[in-house]
């Protein structure tokens, strides 16, 4: 199975989701000015959404900084995005933005820290996803 990278701000919703997922994962630094990790294996990114009403600023700065590293971008295989359905059309929009920029699929979307169903679906989904694809970059 490939790797998992996630961003979680001080609210800790995504961190709690990843903790319940029980899979090894790399947490991105909280601040945008910190040096991002450089990945060496294929991975899926879990990313919350911070968009305003117009959809601006959906992706957190540390995630942008991380994906600006070419090596990281080339190993990204998919994105799982979170958010809050209260934000209507911009719900989990970070997933769409990253998917479009990096040409990868949005694998799943969940709200806040996720439900038990979300956890089960992502666990199963990741297993199937990695099981059906070649882990080495094209």
């Amino acid at each position, binding site marked *: 199975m490939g790797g998992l990278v996630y961003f979680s*701000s*001080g*609210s*800790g*919703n995504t961190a*709690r989701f990843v903790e319940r997922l029980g899979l090894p994962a790399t947490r991105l630094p*909280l*601040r945008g000015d910190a040096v991002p990790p450089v990945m060496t294996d294929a991975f899926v990114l879990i990313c919350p959404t*911070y968009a*305003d*009403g*117009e*959809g*601006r*600023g*959906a*992706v957190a*700065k540390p995630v*942008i*900084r991380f*994906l*600006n590293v*070419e090596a990281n*971008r080339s190993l990204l295989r*998919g994105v799982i995005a979170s958010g*809050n*359905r*209260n*934000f*209507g*059309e911009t*719900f*989990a*929009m970070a*997933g*769409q*933005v*990253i*998917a*479009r*920029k*990096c*040409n*990868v*699929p*949005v*694998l*799943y*979307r969940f*709200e*806040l*820290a996720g*439900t*038990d*169903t979300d956890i089960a*679906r*992502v666990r*199963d*989904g990741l297993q199937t*996803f990695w099981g059906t694809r070649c882990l080495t970059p094209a």
Partner: protein
Amino acid sequence: MKDITHTRPVPRAINWNRLQDDKDLEIWNRLTANFWLPEKVPLSNDIQSWSQLTEDEQTLTIRVFTGLTLLDTIQNTVGAPALMPDAQTPHEEAVLTNIAFMEAVHARSYSSVFSTLCQTAQVDEAFRWSVENEHLQAKSRLILDEYDATSDPLRKKIASVFLESFLFYSGFYLPMHWSSRARLTNTADLIRLIIRDEAIHGYYIGYKFQRAQERLTEGERAELKEFAFGLIFDLYDIEARYTEQLYDPLGLSEDVKAFLHYNANKALQNLGFEALFPEEACRVNPAIMAALSPGSDENHDFFSGSGSSYVIGKTVATEDDDWDF
């Protein structure tokens, strides 16, 4: 020089270029970018739709909106100001003033709906009803007891998150229900703006709760958690009765309760707690979810396998210069 005892220290001028907590600026920017006024929404386009509701449906709608007005009034004049003395940074205080003001905008919006759609006599009756309604008064009382100045700062935050992220939803259900039937769709647009704001308020206050809690002992944290779950149980009890009283005639009470369970769990998540209601109790009517986030389910995701294909994002607004691969 005369020896004068100053009881009130002069605050320091706020410097937004020196942050102690980045979240303050993040939320300030989001709230100010989302600023709106009810005049932005063409409510008069709902006049015809309103006239097609039965008298009972109209009465229910006005009552639900006066109930929401009361919660916004409380948060505007008591709730958000009560959190200010506990603020850990000057920027947090500034964000709370924004929250307080937007609650006044929300409360004012319902009056715009009333003046556009309703008869004065109907509205006056509903405001009288809100004063006399035991459930509405009881939930307000429970929250206000926690907002008391002598209350623990963290208990105030818990009460505030429950108001923002849970108590509104017995009311928000109705305009989403009408909207799902193509009724009062402009009013629903206005309510969605309020729902968006309340989500940020609940998130931010819940975040500040979690930060403050980090400084407590495990025993104190356990005590607060027990208090939080006790309070949401008590509030739910009142909400269930309020819901039945309002929605039983339309046969919608069970549908509304699923929406309450779903939102109660989200309120708890804002505070960093786990869900209370089991998922089978949170299956919200898909029509209500679609009214809440129109368009958000057009793109099917990969794991759910709900669509014939997943979509790799549509064109969306991004503004970051460094987002240029």
